[in-house]
């Protein structure tokens, strides 16, 4: 049995992430937690994030969770979602500029809007798989995932999936034991549940 720690730092929709994990893996222990001991003892880490990046970064450091989370993300299979993903990059333009944890290469910028390209990018869009990865198992290339974000990473050496909204942006990144996605697998119906199923059985390499 795996123990998966869904990091609770007071932000975002943790309920839907943990419900999706429980749905695909009833026998694993899914902990929505901010307790250091539980995070230390977990086998896998999920870092969700909804809202403004500044609040997310602050909430994580206010609770003194950032160091624990970073230490555990160094080795355990980790999934970062939406703003959770953006926090792992170098920096973001949001909230007048914020530094990220710099675990993945790339910067986050405001998506430019036009009358036909609406921002936030909200809704279902296709993810082009740039290369093979365990987490893409049984997920057809160009599957629709659910997105909701106003900022995006436009290029990265760690890119493993791209999506187009006006222009192309990076919708998934992978490096060693970390997989990070801009979309919300917990809101992406069948393909999203398959993605979590893959994460549950992923060894992180």
């Amino acid at each position, binding site marked *: 049995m795996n123990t998966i720690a869904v990091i609770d730092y007071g932000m975002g929709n943790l309920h*839907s992430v943990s419900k999706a994990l429980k*749905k695909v893996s009833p026998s694993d222990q899914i902990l929505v937690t901010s307790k250091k001991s539980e995070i230390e003892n977990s086998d896998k880490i999920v870092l969700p994030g*909804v809202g403004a990046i500044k609040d997310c970064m602050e909430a994580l450091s206010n609770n003194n969770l950032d160091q624990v989370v970073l230490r555990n993300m160094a080795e355990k299979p980790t999934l970062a979602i939406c*703003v959770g993903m953006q926090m792992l990059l170098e920096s973001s333009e949001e909230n007048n500029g914020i530094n990220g944890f710099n675990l993945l290469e790339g910067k986050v910028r405001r998506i430019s809007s036009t009358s036909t390209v609406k921002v*936030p*990018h*909200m809704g*279902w869009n296709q993810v082009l798989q740039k290369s093979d990865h365990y987490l893409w198992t049984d997920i057809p290339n160009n599957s629709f995932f659910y997105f909701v974000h106003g900022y995006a990473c436009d290029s990265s050496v760690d890119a493993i999936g791209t999506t187009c909204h006006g222009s192309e942006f990076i919708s998934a990144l992978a490096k060693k034991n970390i997989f990070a996605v801009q979309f919300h697998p917990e*809101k*992406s119906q069948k393909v999203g549940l398959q993605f979590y199923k893959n994460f549950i059985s992923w060894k992180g390499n």
Partner: protein
Amino acid sequence: MTVAKRIIPCLDVDNGRVVKGVNFLNIRDAGDPSEVARRYDLEGADEITMLDITASHESRATTYQTVEKIASEVFIPLTVGGGVRSLDDIKNLLRSGADKVSINTAAVENPEFVKAASEKFGSQCIVVAIDAKSINKNGDKYEVVTYGGRNKTGLDVVEWAKKLEDFGAGEILLTSMDRDGTKEGFDNQLTKAVSSSINLPVIASGGVGSLQDLVDGILKGGAEAVLAASIFHFSEYSIKEAKEALRLAKIAVRD
């Protein structure tokens, strides 16, 4: 490829039951919210909106339970509205499993609330609902109304939508109160007036009676998403049929 257009069934929920009335009369019971939501999910709905139409102080606990139940069974986005008045309301709804909240009257009464909410939770989860009524015979001027159309605000709909964009709203749920419940189709002139004035996604609502109405809301109204209640609740049409109609009209939809 860009983002797909969305079909959003709407559940009007009163004391834990889905209801739908025609112009607020003849409210018919349309089932348990989580069962209805699950059916729509299986049929391919892109998102679900739940409006708590009682929204009295006492009913909040019921609402949170309903949201939690839907969110544990349905893995597509869920927007919840009705009586959202404080940052705590938003926090509680998001914690219960809502992905977005819809603010209506509280935004009109205090636009700064929209700003505070989007700063705190991010624009992407702040939907502002605008109820609009035509104020001249040509039907090209619209006023924002509240309390089911009983209260006029004097606000011009297009100006209001622009202000909401400035204040950090992430999406506009635009309902024609003239068409709501009539099955005559969306007021596409209204939708177009708003969708062409702002860069936020606009959800068209109010008046759907046929699948062609959904197509027109997107092609003529410029809506990013179309919302409907009664045509789906009473199985006149399935979501699958609605998607097929959009696809035939060459509109990008999720498979």
